[in-house]
């Protein structure tokens, strides 16, 4: 332990980490690794958060909450279930969706009325010209709506089925084929 610590001190700021190294350092509560994590991933997570929350100030709150949670909950990360970034992405997405459902979130910003009668797309061409929303703008309307409602707005398959009057099984298969399309659009 002492040797690792000394080595890190000698090398100064570490430029790159293997993922396993990074996770180990985070688990040791190594602050330098946390800085690296933030510098390397905050932009990617911030983009997703902003596209869910649609508000700069609230996005800041969510990003802060997200990184504090990453730091504190690193013990619960299980590498057998996926990569570190995937784990962080899900923390960020869940925190952002929670924020859109909190009391403080303005009514006018809600994408969907609570009874789910009218589902509106949250993707606006010209505003969302980056990240995943830029990609889903290239999808067919129905596929875009399904990814928008499930990934960006956090509605369950059941809620979407009820609101769109489509059988649950159909919602599931259509979401999956939309995701396959989305993947094909990634470079």
């Amino acid at each position: 332990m002492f040797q690792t610590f000394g080595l890190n001190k000698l090398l100064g700021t570490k430029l790159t980490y293997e993922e396993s190294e990074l996770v180990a350092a985070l688990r040791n509560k190594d602050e330098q690794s946390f800085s690296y994590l933030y510098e390397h991933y905050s932009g990617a997570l911030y983009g997703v958060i902003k596209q869910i929350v649609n508000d700069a100030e609230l996005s800041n709150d969510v990003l802060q909450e997200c990184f504090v949670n990453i730091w504190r909950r690193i013990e619960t990360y299980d590498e057998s279930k996926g990569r570190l970034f995937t784990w962080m992405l899900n923390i960020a997405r869940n925190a952002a969706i929670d924020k859109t459902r909190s009391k403080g979130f303005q009514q006018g910003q809600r994408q969907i009325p609570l009874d789910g009668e009218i589902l509106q797309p949250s993707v606006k061409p010209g505003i969302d010209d980056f990240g995943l929303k830029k990609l889903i703008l290239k999808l067919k309307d129905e596929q875009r709506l399904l990814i928008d409602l499930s990934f960006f707005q956090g509605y369950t398959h059941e809620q979407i089925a009820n609101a769109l009057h489509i059988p649950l099984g159909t919602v599931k298969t259509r979401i999956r084929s939309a995701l396959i399309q989305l993947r094909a659009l990634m470079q």
Partner: protein
Amino acid sequence: MNVKEYISSGIVESYVMGLATEAERTEFEALCAQYPEIAEARNAFELALEEQLLNDSLQAPPFLQSQIKDKVNSSAGEAYPGELPEETPVRRVGAWKFLAAASLILLAGSVYWALTTNKKNQDLLARNKELENQAQQSTASNWRSSSATAPGATMRHARARSAMQRQAAC
């Protein structure tokens, strides 16, 4: 099972993007452990998504980083912010604590009451015995002489009896 078909069903993308149901997730994780091809397919999509989001990211305001660092350093022992209970659970915990405190106070009070009542009871019983003895003695000694003390003794006797009855009623 047809692993290739499973991999190309969209479950991989659905799992990684957090859109799979609980049952689908559990199944997917078990199958990943069983079939390395599925775990590899998952890893490949994770890398593609990660690269996509890293290449097309949005810079957060620079002041946030130090703010987050401060928060992480200042509140090492606190609960996870994401898991802080909402207002209602907090209130429930408060009510529970209040009830526990109130019942302890009640318990202490009733123990004190029981002890003092018991002591009073015994004092009164002893006093009763004494009075009964006195009454019997005075009745016996005045039996034939019909002195003026007899009614007083009988009255003391009666008072002692009614005191006993009051205690019994308690």
